[in-house]
């Protein structure tokens, strides 16, 4: 790998798809979905999704269609990410971590439990200098805490509500762009965003 000046942040360096992780904390099967609906502490399945049939069509089917493609590119896919397993995502090999999770009352809903912003930030190793892409709806407080406590780490998030089916398609093109063009995440993000906007 080429040597880059130290002031260049990771988001500006090329990333390989096998250095990317796509982690899901949300239910991805009918059994998991109904398990979450029954649990009062779970918010996403109970309050964000009207029905299993809609969720299956918009999320589960789209993911099962795209997942083999992600894997072919070498992207590591994690299903049912639990709060205790979050730490294992921030390894030296992982340069780009995408977290697909639900945001509720200033907490992130993991597969097993909710995690507050400070708890989340404390799990990230202090020397971690990769990129964390929060595909979580409007997680500004979390992003701010991570920025303050882990200055080497780059945080990416959306200011608007994230439609899951859109982002799954977006990341599909994003990974292909990184893989094909050997771009940095910033360049790839810009390029894919332009492509999506052109299609509107």
């Amino acid at each position, binding site marked *: 790998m080429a040597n880059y000046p130290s002031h260049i942040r990771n988001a500006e360096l090329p990333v390989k798809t096998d250095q990317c992780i796509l982690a899901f904390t949300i239910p991805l099967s009918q059994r998991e979905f109904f398990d979450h609906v029954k649990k009062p502490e779970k*918010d*996403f399945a109970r*309050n*964000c*999704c*009207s*029905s*299993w*049939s*809609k*969720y*299956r*069509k*918009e*999320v589960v089917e789209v993911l099962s269609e795209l997942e083999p493609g992600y894997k072919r590119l070498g992207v590591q896919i994690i299903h049912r990410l639990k709060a205790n397993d979050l730490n294992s995502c921030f390894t030296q090999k992982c340069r780009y971590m995408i977290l*697909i*999770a*639900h*945001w*509720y009352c200033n907490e992130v809903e993991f597969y097993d439990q909710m995690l507050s912003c400070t708890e989340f930030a404390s799990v990230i190793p202090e020397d971690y200098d990769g990129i964390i892409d929060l*595909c*979580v*709806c*409007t997680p500004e407080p979390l992003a701010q805490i991570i920025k303050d406590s882990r200055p080497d780490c780059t945080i990416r998030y959306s200011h608007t*509500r*994230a*439609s*899951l*089916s*859109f982002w799954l398609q977006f990341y599909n093109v994003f990974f292909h762009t990184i893989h094909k063009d050997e771009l940095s995440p910033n360049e790839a993000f810009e390029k894919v965003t332009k492509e999506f906007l052109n299609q509107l």
Partner: protein
Amino acid sequence: MKIEAILTEFLEHTQRSKNIDMGGSVAAVNDDQKNLLVNNLIRENQFNKSLIVVITAMFVVLFGVAIFFCFYYRNSPQTMGIIFGGSFLGIMGIMKALQGVWEKKCKMDMLLTIIPNISAEQVVVVIETLLNEKPATASVN
């Protein structure tokens, strides 16, 4: 109006037609919205009933006309062949239309039986399931 259009309109009206987001929560559905849907379905069902009567009447008329022409042209086998062929094709078309209306009526009757007896929130589940799923063709566990 098609049954799918009525159901989609209900989801739009209740703001449930949007994609699933990773935050916030879905809008609440109230009994007024549910009752509006029931009234729309009743109105459409009555229209369908009239449509079934009209199509059945057309069926009978076509059959009667075919019999009349058969007797009228009984000495002309070629004309009788044309009459038989024409009435067969006409009846097939009417049967197809009748089948479509009947299917819609069955769905509406089912919805009109279920919807008044469940909560507004459950109505959304039933409608989304009806719009997104197809009937099971194999046994499920």
